[in-house]
């Protein structure tokens, strides 16, 4: 380019300009004719509809991801996009087979045994080798947990200590005897051999993992390429579902701009999988021939939290119920989410262990204006009362806020919609006197068991950071006792039922809606596979025999 520019400088201005632009275009044409159009993607050769078993060619999946991954190292804080790219490269001690499953499978761990409420004896497979050839031992588990602690990886704080008892055996001591803590911490930390990590620190390379793929190229914030290992340590019959490697090469490209993502969905030859699609482009993607569009449930639930403290009108249970009855969820899903979401039939996630299907038969404040008006009258709240709604800054809060405002207008309440930046959100939420009445919070499954999420979000003795009790701002001892009972080893389904009923009856929070994560993929991919967090695991997807996209 500099040569072009300098040539231009010697010519008269106008000719210089023409030369620069023409050269730029020619450069694009020259490379674009062969690879330029594909280099961010991956086109099959001309006219090829050939067997996937075609010799000497490696199958390749190019994936467009809507958000960037800025770091590729095992001891990183989880996010959905990081989860997708790390899958297959780094492995965990054990994890649930899939989202919503109660089947817990060992990945690096061969077996484990509960010694007491907080102590577990664990044994690793004794033939684990990472992609650099380093053996993975119990010492490496201890090292990985220490690094996770050091990096503040949230759930690792439940591991008090790792004691290495034998080269491939260790004792894990937990800080909490709560239900599901062991499973949660096993799923929390990606593991890596100390030798691999120290090498990566020393030479700036990508840390080798024990998974079936090795990262061969990582451009922070832009793209990642992983390739299948020929020497993956686990035998096929014992390989975890998420450690399967059904495609040879995977390229992840960051495509954070929605129109670019829409273009990628329309170019299945260049990009075979797009995840996740903005609601605004899902319908168009459904019309593209040769492309399947699939919506997956999110682990996040958008929850209406009422300020039940003395500082808000929402301290009135009847008002809270009036608001819930007045909320038209169909209008919300259609109007604000373009149909790409769902309203939960009751309080709790059906993908958590302990969820009781029978709860769905009850009335979870189904849209009923008459009931809403009656409740409002019972609350003694005059017409025209203004309530303050807060949510994280963004289009979703604007849309959902305006839907809720129109719903409440039908019963004579006014809603003031306020968006707050993520940086200030917890400050507002914690300050009950700051004026908020309704807050929309993104609540996430906090482990395999429902009680873990209930405990986290609803109880002051759980894991939330509320200074005034539960997330709705008041301490309720009856509720706390229910949580304590259910979160102990004696906890039974009846206790969980009691918590559910208590929260629903008191209407402290209202689980409002959940977005779907939508991905599109070429028809030659028969089935997509996700892990316990419903993150796509590209390598484990099922590719048909006529999958014809090659490196």
């Amino acid at each position, binding site marked *: 380019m500099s040569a072009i520019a300098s040539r231009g400088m010697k010519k008269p201005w106008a000719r*210089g300009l023409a030369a620069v632009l023409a050269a730029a275009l020619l450069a694009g044409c020259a490379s674009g004719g062969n690879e330029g159009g594909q280099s961010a993607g991956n086109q099959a050769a001309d006219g090829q509809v050939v067997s996937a078993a075609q010799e000497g060619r490696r199958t390749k999946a190019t994936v467009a991801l809507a958000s960037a991954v*800025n770091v590729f190292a095992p001891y990183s804080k989880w996010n959905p996009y990081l989860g997708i790219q790390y899958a297959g490269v780094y492995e965990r001690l054990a994890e649930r087979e899939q989202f919503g499953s109660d089947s817990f499978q060992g990945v690096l761990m061969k077996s484990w045994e509960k010694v007491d409420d907080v102590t577990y004896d664990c044994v690793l497979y004794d033939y684990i080798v990472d992609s650099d050839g380093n053996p993975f031992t119990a010492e490496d588990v201890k090292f990985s947990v220490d690094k996770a602690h050091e990096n503040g990886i949230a759930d690792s704080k439940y591991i008090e200590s790792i004691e290495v008892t034998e080269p491939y055996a260790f004792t894990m001591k937990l800080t909490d005897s709560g239900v599901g803590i062991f499973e949660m911490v096993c799923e929390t930390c990606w593991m890596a051999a100390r030798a691999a990590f120290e090498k990566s620190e020393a030479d700036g390379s990508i840390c080798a993992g024990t998974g079936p793929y090795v990262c061969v190229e990582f451009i922070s914030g832009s793209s990642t390429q992983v390739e299948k290992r020929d020497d993956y340590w686990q035998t096929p019959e014992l390989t975890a579902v998420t450690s399967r490697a059904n495609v040879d090469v995977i390229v992840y490209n960051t495509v954070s701009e929605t129109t*670019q993502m829409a273009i990628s969905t329309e170019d299945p030859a260049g990009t075979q999988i797009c995840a996740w699609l903005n609601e605004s482009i899902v319908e168009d993607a459904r019309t593209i021939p040769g492309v399947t569009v699939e919506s997956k449930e999110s682990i996040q639930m958008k929850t209406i939290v009422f300020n039940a403290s003395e500082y808000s009108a929402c301290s009135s249970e009847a008002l809270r119920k009036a608001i819930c009855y007045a909320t038209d969820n169909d209008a919300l899903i259609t109007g604000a989410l373009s149909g790409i979401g769902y309203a939960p039939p009751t309080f709790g996630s059906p993908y958590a262990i302990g969820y009781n299907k029978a709860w769905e038969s009850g009335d979870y404040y189904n849209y009923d204006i008459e009931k809403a008006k009656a409740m409002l009258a019972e609350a003694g709240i005059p017409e025209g009362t203004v309530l303050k709604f807060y949510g994280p800054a963004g289009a979703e809060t604007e849309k959902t806020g305006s839907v809720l405002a129109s719903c409440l207008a039908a019963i004579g309440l006014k809603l003031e919609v306020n968006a707050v930046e993520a940086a200030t959100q917890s400050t507002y939420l914690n300050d009950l006197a700051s004026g908020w009445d309704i807050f929309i919070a993104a609540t996430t499954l906090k482990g395999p068991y429902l009680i873990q999420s209930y405990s986290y979000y609803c109880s002051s003795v759980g894991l939330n950071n509320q200074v005034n009790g539960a997330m709705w701002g008041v301490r309720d001892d009856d509720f706390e006792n229910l949580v304590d009972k259910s979160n102990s080893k004696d906890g039974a389904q009846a206790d969980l039922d009691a918590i559910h009923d208590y929260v629903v009856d008191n209407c402290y929070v209202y689980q409002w809606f959940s977005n779907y994560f939508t991905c599109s993929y070429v028809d030659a991919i028969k089935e997509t596979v996700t892990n316990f967090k419903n993150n796509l695991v590209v390598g484990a997807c099922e590719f048909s025999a006529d999958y014809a996209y090659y490196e």
Partner: protein
Amino acid sequence: MIRYVFRRLALMIPIIIGVTVLVFTIIWFTPGDAAEVLAGNAPREQVEELRRLMGLDRPYIVQLGDYLYNVFIRHDFGKALVNKTSISADIVMRFPKSLIFAVFGILISVFAGIPLGVYAALHQNKTGDSLATAFSLLFVSTPGFWLALMLVLLFAYRLGWLPPYGMGGVEYWIMPVLANCFHGVAIITRQTRSSMLEVIRSDFVVMARSKGLSEGEVIVRHALPNALIPIIAVAGMNFGGMLGGGLIIEKVFSIPGIGNYLVTAVGQRDFTAVMGGVIITSLFFSLVMLAADLGMAFVDPRVKEQYSTARRRK
């Protein structure tokens, strides 16, 4: 002249320190802090403990002094809160991408905008002038991201000539640079036209013509250097804008530059990364403005004369 350069460089020191203090202070007063980011939703006592361990419970002035010491003496911006990577290393990796993007953007803007502006001025009220004016009006008012998407639709999607996004060879840079520079081309064209119109009516230009110089010599040797001063100022501002403000283009083309870094850091509440990014951007912006001032001093005979006179007086 060298004296002037050194004086300007020396002046940059308080500016950069001032920016650092300002950025640190704004972030210090922003609700929430690094301990909250690291602790997530941990109980309040744990957040307080973390705050104490990180030294965030110390007085403002102590924390500020510590930060200034680390940045200016140890050249260490610290580690990013979220990714745990070295901020200096992150910036070193990302900044060149934004710089390349901005340098080529400004080069095209200058080498296209000045000739177009000169041509328009020399053909005032004729077809060429009208076309150049229309061109500049069109691109001044066209949002960069829209233009970027149109380029993608045409060159990547319809024609398949260029990759739609990502990082790689020269072909990956063409659309981002073009999308980023059209606004600059338009601005510089307009500025050049108006400056040239002012200059070509000046007495010294009439004098140059009356001396029998060719029209080319009159324009290149006499009119253009005098018209360049405001153009250089505008180009300098544009370059700064392209450097820090190309984040929308960076987002459209998935370029991991400093703009993208800053936006991600803001979204993740990564205060240390935000501070590092803003300080480096302001440092380079100051350097660019210095270069623009030196360029003005270089092309303006009056400025040159001013320095020569100062030297003779001594």
